[in-house]
């Protein structure tokens, strides 16, 4: 990931390349970091108090990442298209489905509806940051999902797991109704709520036994 950490997109110039180097697996290369929705954003007038600078440092999954971020860029886009953290999904991009849920200072929020510039100085945790970085061991929420065989298509899974993580951190002793309430910001179109609640209750159980 080393090369991916400094990305300059201050100018996006038209350059036609007629050959393809190949498909890039997520996280495997740096050059993919240049894809993005925006390119012509205004540079903030730096003399004005409070104007946001574009080159910022983000704390994502415990790592400091230097990244060039447009003022109008959402966190989900930065994660997916600049930092290659594609585990954070975009299901609706409108704060309605929860597939983009990430933890910002431990609080679950919609990545699609947070400007990246708003999380400077915060610590951001995505689905990729849940495993133990040293051992690769799954987090207890992830383990709970394995135990219960959770999720079907699983496009919603990263978001649900982030919400479950926030839930068990806050209340490791929820009732099923409380768990449902805590997860009510995430949508599962496979309708797998029953099993998801089982996962959440199992996660809480694991959390209590730690």
């Amino acid at each position, binding site marked *: 990931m080393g090369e991916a950490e400094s990305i300059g997109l201050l100018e996006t110039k038209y350059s036609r390349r007629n050959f393809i180097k190949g498909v890039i697996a997520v996280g495997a290369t740096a050059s993919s970091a240049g894809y993005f929705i925006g390119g012509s954003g205004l540079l*903030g007038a730096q003399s004005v*108090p409070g104007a946001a600078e574009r080159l910022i440092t983000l704390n994502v999954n415990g790592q400091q990442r230097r990244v060039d971020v447009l003022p109008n860029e959402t966190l989900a886009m930065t994660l997916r298209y600049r930092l290659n953290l594609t585990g954070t999904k975009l299901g609706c991009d*409108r*704060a309605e489905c929860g597939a983009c849920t990430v933890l910002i200072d431990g609080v679950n*929020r919609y990545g699609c509806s947070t400007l990246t*510039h*708003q999380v400077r100085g915060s610590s951001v945790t995505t689905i990729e940051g849940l495993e133990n970085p040293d051992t690769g061991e799954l987090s207890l929420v992830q383990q709970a999902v394995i135990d219960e065989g959770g999720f079907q298509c699983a496009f919603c899974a990263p978001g649900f797991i982030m919400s479950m993580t926030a839930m068990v951190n806050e209340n490791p002793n929820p009732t099923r109704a409380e768990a449902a309430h805590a997860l009510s910001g995430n949508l599962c179109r496979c309708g797998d709520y029953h099993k998801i609640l089982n996962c959440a209750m199992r996660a809480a159980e694991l959390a209590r036994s730690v």
Partner: protein
Amino acid sequence: MAIIRDMIPAFELFQPTTVEDALVLLAEHGQGAWVLAGGLDSYDWFKDRIKRPEAVIDLGGIDELTGISDAQDGLEIGAMTTLTEIVRHERVRSEYTLLADAAEHVATPQIRNQGTLGGNISQDTRCWYYRSGWPCYRAGGNTCYAAAPQAMNREHAIMGTSRCVAVSPSDTAHALVALDAKMIVRGRRSSNVYDAEDFFIGPATDITRMTVLESGDLLTQINIPGEWANAHFYYEKVRDRGSWDFQLVSVAAAFKTSGNTIDDARIVVNGVAPFPVRLDAVERLVRGTSVDEAVAIEAGEIAIQGSHALKYNEYKQPMMSNLVRRAVRSVA
């Protein structure tokens, strides 16, 4: 020009750390400025590319706007205090349960973690004609598409309309009116305090705004007076889904009671008008009465007097009537 959605147009982002700086920025950018609180209403407008501010002033970095503090009499809530903080605040939960209840009914946990009280009461209406970018009265055009005879207006207003039939979407607005909250609005030069009731304005007064806030204004604080602390509260929101849904009709009521006699009451309904509707007539009726089912029924009937249904929202009349009935009944 072809229409396209789902891409936030470019803007300049400002993240001031003081209210003063924010006001300066707002003044500098005038009509081109956009105040960003939690942003959940704003991003919709941006992503639809309907609102295209030049400068977005993000209030997230202004510490003085967040937090709940004890005042001599009541509470002072910074406008940027998140709904989750309100829900979890001990005094709000115990003394002003109505507000905690209301805040808890907002959308989803993620939205409550980010959305602010100030933003929740300042958000724009969800009339889907208006939100689709159609040139209706509210958007500066010359018609109301939602009030047309065949229009889809199940979620629109039954009272307080004037050309525009949109409803106030907020879950907390009526709770704040019921608590007789005071809104502190700062402009570049002056600072005004509004009763919550006066903070929300209808289309008869200004069809393009839902609150008194004008370009350059900042809602900084919401004060909850002690007057209604520990009153008997009733909050109920009827919605189609259990989460992420705006109210069809919702009631917030505060009663001072002795036994089942109501000494004083503030009863406010939302989802039925372009602003939270305080039911003075119902309050007069119940004040000094000892509540029984007959009073509750009468309260419900009086509540909807003068309401006028559109094609698809007639159900809001009984729904509102019933909710008011339940609120009054809850005292018995």
